[in-house]
């Protein structure tokens, strides 16, 4: 028996196939992962993401603390509700977790970290926090629901109160607003428009049922993964972990090097890596023939040269059959010298792949 979110009974009522996910009983799908995927690309779907960890960072040194804790710089955040994506690194420059931080004020931030990394994240954040005048607390008052798809915003707005509807008018991408108990953010993990909404746990089931009545389709972890992979978004544990540099995980854009006088955990290790030269990068792969690329498959840059040479070998970090493209796609970590084509070893056979930027589908449109 795992931990249950406030939506657990909703999942059972919707005939979810429940699986263990990092100690949580979560829906894998509600019948067809494929149809849930298409619902999000074409209409609107909702995902229970209450297993993710909400951390409140408050205190007079909250800003300085987060500027030291995170590779991105929360000093960029000046408007209430603005969100920032960042890596939280260790001293070696490896990624402890990736997260989103919301700015409420200079001494009040809200941070959402992953579920599978909860214990180590909280321990690390509290350890670093002991040197600052901040409180770092795990907030368990909320359920979290991601509503995603081209019709997600309009279908959600229809069930909001009038005051809440006013509050979300003009809400920009990567902004959040708090209104009558809801914390509504224009963020997501699907490559579509939509919201991620924090709902007081006691109101979660009612909120779910209203969305359900408004034809928002329940979607499980299965489609969440194929959607984020099509969108080219990293999954912690697949694309990066504590032994991966953000410079090799498509996260260079999340490292704020300026202002140069700011120190952050992992900075000196990253500077050293830059000086020595970063050897690998994340790319997207599109299989040219039939079959399915899966994580950990071997990528070979040039099949005519030494297939054992490290400079010629990469590894798939995530792979799937893309429901939108109807072709297999993957994200892979490969030597920087990779060209426009490569081979992937699929079940003992080499198959040709096209090498692209790791972003395959956005707002319902194929990018490759």
């Amino acid at each position, binding site marked *: 028996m795992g931990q249950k979110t406030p939506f657990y009974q909703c999942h059972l009522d919707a005939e979810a196939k429940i699986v263990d996910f990092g100690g949580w009983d979560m829906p894998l*799908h509600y019948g*067809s*992962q*494929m149809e849930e995927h298409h619902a999000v690309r074409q209409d609107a779907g909702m995902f229970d993401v209450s297993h993710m960890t909400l951390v409140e960072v408050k205190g007079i040194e909250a800003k300085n603390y987060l500027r030291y804790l995170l590779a991105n710089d929360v000093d960029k955040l000046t408007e209430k509700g603005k969100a920032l994506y960042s890596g939280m690194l260790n001293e070696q420059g490896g990624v402890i977790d990736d997260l989103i931080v919301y700015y409420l004020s200079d001494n009040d931030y809200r941070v959402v970290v992953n579920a599978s990394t909860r214990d180590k994240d909280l321990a690390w954040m509290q350890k670093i926090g002991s040197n600052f005048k901040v409180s770092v607390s795990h907030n368990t008052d909320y359920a979290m629901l991601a509503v995603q798809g081209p019709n997600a915003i309009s279908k959600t707005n229809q069930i909001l109160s009038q005051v809440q509807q006013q509050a979300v008018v003009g809400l920009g991408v990567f902004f959040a607003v708090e209104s009558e108990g809801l914390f509504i953010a224009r963020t997501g993990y699907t490559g579509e428009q939509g919201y991620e909404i924090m709902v007081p746990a006691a109101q979660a089931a009612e909120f779910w049922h209203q969305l359900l009545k408004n034809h928002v389709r329940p979607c499980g972890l299965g489609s969440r993964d194929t959607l984020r992979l099509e969108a080219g978004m990293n999954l912690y544990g697949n694309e990066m972990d504590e032994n991966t540099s953000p410079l090799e995980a498509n996260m260079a854009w999340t490292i704020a090097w300026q202002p140069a006088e700011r120190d952050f955990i992992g900075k000196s290790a990253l500077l050293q890596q830059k000086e020595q030269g970063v050897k690998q990068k994340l790319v997207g792969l599109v299989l040219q023939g*039939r079959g*399915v690329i899966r994580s950990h498959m071997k990528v070979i840059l040039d099949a005519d040269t030494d297939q054992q040479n490290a400079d010629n070998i990469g590894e798939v970090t995530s792979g799937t*059959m893309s*429901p939108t493209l109807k072709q*297999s796609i993957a994200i892979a970590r490969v030597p920087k010298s990779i060209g426009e084509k490569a081979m992937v070893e699929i*079940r003992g056979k080499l198959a040709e792949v096209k090498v692209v930027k790791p972003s395959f589908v956005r707002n319902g449109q194929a990018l490759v």
Partner: protein
Amino acid sequence: MSNVPSDLKYISSHEWIREEDDGSVTIGITDHAQELLGDVVFIELPDIDSEVALEDEIAVVESVKAASDIYAPLSGTIIAVNEDLVDTPEIVNSSPYDDGWMFKMQPSEPSELEGLLDAESYQNEIDD
């Protein structure tokens, strides 16, 4: 609750076998198997006329979740494959026992038929 038709034979790796009047057999995966796999997205079928031995890996079913091998339930020759599955593999989910059949074989060792499970035995296996 998975459907296990009583007129078919089975093997533990969740394949069904139907004995046809002409002595050939038709093979597919069970309703229970397609439920375990989730949406099927790709099927690699065996080559027609290929000779296969009992328990050879002869086909692959890939679902959204993972790849699974399909084993030869009998020794013999592959005499037909279901070409519809190439473009619409999801038929295996919607109709595992009819439109979702995978291949037909001409058995070379008829005695192997006696090693197959009947519906009741297969049902007991998946209930465990």
